[in-house]
């Protein structure tokens, strides 16, 4: 008797669960799963614009064959974009960790400093920054300058050139500096996530470490980093996804350019291949990271 009452309670509860999930189930089916299936179908067909919308004529693996055997431009871009994301992810992680560590401490004007560092979050996700980067800062100040970097360090370069530093080394240094600028603008959300995680580390950990006479260096490697590692997993994956879906990403640009060329089927093929690559990379990274990361509850 009691058991059956309990079971009906469970049943009632799970009914409520479905009520909470209902809008999402409908939405995800209609606006995500169905379009994904359509994209899959498109990628195996040739699209003809008929009287009522598209007509898809199946062509088997033709689009995929074309991609892997003839479209070397795209294949190269895919490899470059995958390879470029890795070093920039590493740099973003290092950066956001450093800045979060600095911003965590109490110091005068901390509120202002935080407000400044989160500004990129507000602006960097829009078209404005890329317009500034590619159209304003290039032409505006120095007419002859043609690099697309946001931040130029000409004075610095001159100083080092006077000191007799070889040009090759100088070039690589300035390109790193210029990269840093872009990366700084991409790490707003990551700084937020790291700060949130830093605040969850119990102060007692550090008190114990201080009693034992640990240096700041040891505290970082033995306490901060291990406790941060689950967040690092989240941040790394977020950064990867952000890099892969960025509007400046070559592949996304190419996919979008096929829309305007009315070659939808091929765009769908490229999209499918790209999705699979991204899933593979993200899956691999999260698998590796979950081995390395330290979960205190286990």
């Amino acid at each position, binding site marked *: 008797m009691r058991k059956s009452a309990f079971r009906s309670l469970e049943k009632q509860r799970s009914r409520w669960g479905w009520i909470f999930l209902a809008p999402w189930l409908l939405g995800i089916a209609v606006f995500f799963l169905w379009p994904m299936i359509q994209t899959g179908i498109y990628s195996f067909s040739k699209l003809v614009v008929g009287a009522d919308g598209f007509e898809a004529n199946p062509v088997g693996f033709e689009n995929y064959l074309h991609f892997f055997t003839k479209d070397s431009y795209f294949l190269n871009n895919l490899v470059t974009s995958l390879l470029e994301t890795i070093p920039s992810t590493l740099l973003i992680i290092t950066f956001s960790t450093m800045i979060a560590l600095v911003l965590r401490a109490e110091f005068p004007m901390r509120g202002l400093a935080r407000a400044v560092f989160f500004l990129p979050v507000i602006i960097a996700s829009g078209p404005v920054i890329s317009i500034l980067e590619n159209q304003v800062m290039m032409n*505006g100040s120095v007419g002859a300058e043609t690099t697309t970097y946001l931040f130029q360090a000409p004075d610095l370069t001159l100083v080092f050139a006077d000191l007799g530093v070889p040009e090759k080394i100088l070039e690589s240094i300035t390109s790193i500096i210029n990269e840093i600028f872009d990366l700084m603008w991409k790490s707003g959300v990551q700084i937020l996530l790291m700060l949130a995680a830093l605040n969850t580390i119990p102060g007692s950990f550090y008190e114990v470490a201080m009693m034992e006479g640990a240096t700041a260096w040891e505290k970082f490697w033995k306490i901060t980093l291990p406790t941060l590692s689950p967040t690092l997993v*989240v941040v790394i994956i977020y950064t990867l996804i952000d890099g892969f879906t960025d509007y400046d990403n070559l592949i996304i640009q190419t996919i979008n350019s096929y829309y305007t060329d009315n070659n939808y089927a091929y765009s769908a093929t490229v999209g499918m291949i790209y999705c699979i690559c991204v899933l593979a990379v993200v899956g691999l990274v999260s698998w590796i990271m979950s081995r390395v990361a330290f979960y205190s509850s286990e």
Partner: protein
Amino acid sequence: MDWSRRSVLYKRHLLRIGGGLIRTVFLLGVGYVTLYPLLFMISSSFMSVSDTLDATVVWLPTGMNWFNFQKAFDLMNYGEALKNTLVLVLPCVALQVVSCVFIAYGFARFKLPGLPILFALLLFNIIVPSDCYIIPVYVLMSELKLINTVWQFYIQALFGVGIRSALYIFIIRQFFRTMPKELEEAAFIDGCNPLQTFLRVMVPNIKSAILTVSVLSLVWYYNDFSMFGMLLNGNYPLSVAITSVGTTLDSNMQYLTGQAISADLKILRASILAAACLIVVLPITAVYVLVQKHFTEGIERTGIVG
């Protein structure tokens, strides 16, 4: 006090000053890097062509020059575009936040058969770039006769598939999971059904998380231009309007001069674009300045992390 202890204290004092100094230099450097494009944008939007060419004028223009802003206003049809933005973005944000909180509770607190699969689907939705499936969405919206209307975005926001909805559901779910189970048990004993528990106990307790998600949602809707540009045909919001300012300027200038654009016009073009960028980011930055204190505090307390 003996000498060794004194020297230790002295050393600690020095370290503190040194650390403060390093921190200040580091923050100033990184802060400069962060603010550089914004300062550049503000300064060049006020510059006239002669100011830009004048080597003695570096950051501060010689006078307030509103010409660039006038041009940018006209080119973007700013008033209209701002109205379109508000009409699109505000309802979307409201619907998205409400639906995400509602759905996230379903993910966080109910043991349902097949929930792990649904959760995997949610993660999948976060990962896949929307550019990969936007064409079928376009076709679907045309068939539903919703294309070019604002309703298509409202509907997507309402059903938990708006811009980055999956990410917000994930964030809020993490937050619900950190709340003690006893709260809900107490509410149950007092005779609340799950909906009442959700509304009266759970939601009031995650206000800061809701604020954080609202700001993120506002920012991403305000800044989105690929989806709005794809599914709308006219009545563009600011984020889409600004992407065409450069090309419009180019064609206008070519039409006026009938030849390749001169260096002076190039400078003018850049200044007008800077002004356009400034008036586009101004509204969202104002909102951010108003809520930023609660926002940063909120996100720290959420422990968004796993």
